[in-house]
């Protein structure tokens, strides 16, 4: 039998990883909710943020925490730019075209990175967050804890922004009914751009935090992309916190089932859970529609 301590450790670790997944998923679901586009390049923006953190650390000696605010700002504008330069052109195209578009974008980013920086795996050297703490019987790195806290805080902020501020409500209105929103004078274009900005910014945050304890390479973003889609599907459409929970649940499944059953197969459990949810609860576990 698995000792209670190992179980607890896997629950905590899983939950923290889930926090990162959730952060990425929230960004993805914002974009999806606004314009019904699945961003196949989402994880690659995560990867870029990881590389940014690595290079800032390597070349400038910056601690990831220092890089963080820069990444947040740059990634916000990168999201907006991506929307204006690329995504806007396929807004009204058939879904196939939208799929290719973000898929192609992801490939472009990944291989540009591969070309520039090769396939070598990098790690960000010891930094403020890599110290391991012991809470009771559980070991966690400060990085993991910080990542979890940050993801919770960021999601809460985004949630408040969406629900409470005027701009946020404009985003809500647009995702629910674009035509009506337009008639009410909301500039859906600006709203869409903002949605992309915030979505990519979340992913950037996730990347910086992740880089403090996770290996960095050109394919690093892809598993997070995949998990993000799964989290969005599991969490349900139209439910922000559902998506967040979806991410946490996936982290838990991966961590707990992985430790308890078979570590090498941990992602398999996630994928199986995904397919089960899609079949039996296509609206997601917490979805409204």
């Amino acid at each position: 039998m698995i000792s209670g301590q190992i179980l607890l450790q896997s629950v905590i670790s899983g939950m923290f990883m889930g926090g990162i997944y959730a952060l990425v998923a929230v960004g993805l679901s914002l974009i999806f909710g606004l314009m019904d586009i699945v961003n196949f390049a989402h994880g690659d923006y995560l990867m870029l943020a990881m590389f940014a953190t690595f290079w800032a650390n390597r070349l400038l000696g910056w601690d990831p925490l220092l890089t963080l605010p820069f990444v947040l700002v740059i990634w916000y504008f990168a999201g907006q730019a991506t929307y204006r330069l690329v995504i806007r052109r396929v807004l009204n195209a058939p879904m196939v075209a939208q799929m290719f578009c973000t898929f192609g974008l992801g490939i472009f980013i990944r291989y540009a990175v591969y070309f520039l920086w090769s396939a070598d795996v990098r790690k960000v050297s010891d930094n403020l967050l890599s110290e391991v703490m012991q809470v009771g019987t559980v070991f966690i790195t400060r990085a993991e804890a910080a990542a979890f806290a940050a993801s919770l805080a960021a999601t809460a902020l985004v949630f408040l922004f969406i629900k409470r501020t005027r701009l946020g409500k404009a985003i809500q209105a647009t995702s629910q009914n674009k035509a009506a929103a337009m008639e009410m004078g909301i500039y859906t274009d600006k709203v869409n751009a903002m949605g992309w900005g915030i979505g990519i910014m979340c992913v950037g945050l996730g990347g910086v935090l992740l880089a403090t304890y996770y290996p960095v390479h050109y394919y690093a973003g892809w598993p997070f992309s995949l998990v993000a889609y799964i989290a969005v599907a599991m969490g349900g459409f139209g439910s922000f916190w559902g998506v967040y929970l979806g991410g946490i649940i996936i982290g838990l499944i991966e961590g707990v089932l992985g430790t308890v059953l078979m570590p090498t197969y941990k992602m398999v459990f996630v994928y199986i859970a995904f397919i089960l949810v899609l079949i039996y609860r296509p609206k997601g576990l917490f979805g409204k529609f």
Partner: protein
Amino acid sequence: MKESAATIYKLLGVLAVIGLLILFPHIFPKPFPQHIMILLLMYVVLGQAWNILGGYSGQLSLGNQIFLTLGAYTSTMFLVKLGVSPWLGILPGIVISSLAALAIGTICFNLKGHYFAIATIGLSEIIFIIFLNWEFVNSSYGFQIRFAGNSLLWMTWSHKLPYYYLILLLALLVVAFVWKMDRSTLGIYLRAIKEDEVRVKSLGIDTRKYKLLAFVISAAITTIAGTFYAQYVMYIDPDSLLNLDFALLIIILPLVGGMGTVLGPILGACLLVPLAEYLRTLLGGGGRGVHLILYGLIIMAIAVSQPRGLIGIIQEVQRRRFRRNSVAGAEEESDHEVA
């Protein structure tokens, strides 16, 4: 009268192309160009197979490499463990792949567009992880195929020529099949399903069955290509077969060339494969992956401007020329009237 002349020209054109293809290895006897053409033809086969489900019915799968893997592994394991010729090994491969396709299709076809694609990626990852850890298939070590002399029976040769003709034959058969299917009842049903599946169902057609049929055919063809791939490369392992890049390469030809058309994957191959090679020679060793950067850009460009791919572009050009001609013709006529 004009129509039959056009058909004769088309037929001559096709025969000329086939003739060139047959003569190709004699025009370019070096192994490198032959290798390129072998890859090109293999991607045409894979692309056409994908096209049957994805292009025609609109159900976009990013998991066809699963069938490639099943084909490669099945025939190889029959060879290595039971001493059975890979030609025979193709048959159990097709059976396994067809069952897999039926299972995947039945479970996943209800999923909307992007979710079907993501589910197929998920399945591919599941199988990757399983193969990586399963002793029965030699886990991450994979299998090496021993060279059995220049043998048709064992499908191994020391030079590329026989491989070339083999894949050429397969490619021609597949293209001919897709051409026939395009005009067949199934082709029409699939295109209608792609356009408006609900409407098709309301006309009494059980769309599930036809999509499954398309999927099984697609899987079977991909499986055969898998056996060829194994025999050509002589080494298979989960890493080389089940990675996402392979998935990408399978779909990129029909995507860029034109989904749901017979010529699409062929045009796509003719553009993309030489382009990749040219870039590779241009940039030498440092150019690894550059062609993929370009692929990414091309995919985006196509998505943004002409999702129907090269075929779509050609059709647009034809339509504009037709309109210009007919306007000119009408003007001519009215000139005469006035005169």
